[in-house]
């Protein structure tokens, strides 16, 4: 499998994973290793002053082993997301950001106007911006114009596990963008990941599908295989679909009935 390349950096895995909602830090670490992911997302939150070790992800994840991609989750405006991105850069000493600007708390769908604006500002500040967006071509094109290093449309709403609801839109986005397309959010199980990669996208970002599985480590391994299988099937090029059966065995040389 050819590596994933974003903004001149290469990643052996086409799978990027989140670090939220795991049953324990130990299971998280084992699952992330099983997923094969090189890059993991993290959130920036207040330190619990009474118990500063609580929730400190760097106690579990070493930045030497994984590239940390700070997100701007729970931001509802460009201003809030820009602030979160700057805090993430200061915390991680990296210019990369998974940009989220949410427009509605029930669907967690993106506020696309604010997202484009935040992308523009952060790109001007030297950030490598990976915006989470909806599966809409026009927004994807505007994010690319604004300088996004990759565009990350959803498969279905964050944490829903509903899988790839609109493969056509994802294919259209992939066919029209020059920057990598990473499908972010909505994958529920391995077949979803495989089917998503078969659309030709460059990678997948997922969190809940692994973290909320009954056995996250086993699911992480399944996702690793599914992403690779889907990518290889896409590269191989599938056979054409036909309405009627075509035999696979020769029609000649069948011994006649007695």
């Amino acid at each position, binding site marked *: 499998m050819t590596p994933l390349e974003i903004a001149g950096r290469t990643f052996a895995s086409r799978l990027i994973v*989140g670090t939220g909602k795991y049953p324990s830090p130990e299971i998280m670490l084992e699952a992330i290793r099983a997923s094969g992911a090189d890059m993991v*997302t993290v*959130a920036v939150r207040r*330190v619990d002053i009474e118990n500063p070790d609580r*929730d400190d992800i760097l106690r579990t994840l070493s930045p030497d082993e994984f590239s940390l991609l*700070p997100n701007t989750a729970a931001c509802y405006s460009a201003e809030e997301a820009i*602030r979160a991105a*700057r805090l993430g850069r200061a915390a991680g000493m990296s210019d990369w950001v998974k940009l989220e600007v949410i427009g509605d708390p029930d669907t967690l769908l993106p506020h696309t106007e604010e997202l484009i604006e935040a992308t523009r500002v952060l790109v001007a500040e030297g950030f490598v911006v990976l915006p989470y967006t909806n599966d809409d071509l026009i927004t994807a094109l505007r994010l690319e114009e604004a300088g996004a290093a990759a565009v990350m449309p959803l498969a279905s709403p*964050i944490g829903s596990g509903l899988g790839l609801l609109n493969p056509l839109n994802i294919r259209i986005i992939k066919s029209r963008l020059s920057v990598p397309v990473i499908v972010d959010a909505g994958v529920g199980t391995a077949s979803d990941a495989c089917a998503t990669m078969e659309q030709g996208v460059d990678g997948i970002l997922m969190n809940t599908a692994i973290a909320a599985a009954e056995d996250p480590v086993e699911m992480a391994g399944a996702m690793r295989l599914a992403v690779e299988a889907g990518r290889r099937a896409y590269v191989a090029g599938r056979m054409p679909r036909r309405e009627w059966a075509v035999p696979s065995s020769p029609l000649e040389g069948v011994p006649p009935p007695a």
Partner: protein
Amino acid sequence: MEIMQIQVNGKERDVPAGTSVATLLRDLGLDGRMLVVELNRRIVRPPEIESVQLEAGDRVELVHFVGGG
């Protein structure tokens, strides 16, 4: 000793007047940790932590990385 009130992660806190950011972190037992200090919405870079002095009413945010998607 003169006391002033500041806010740390949304909670009121009394500190001696003239406290620096570095002193605040030491008093909280947080010195040497990987965290980011934001003072009145402006990030305080590590080299400035010793020199930046807090003033009454300052709002300090101390943040770090946690799990997220």
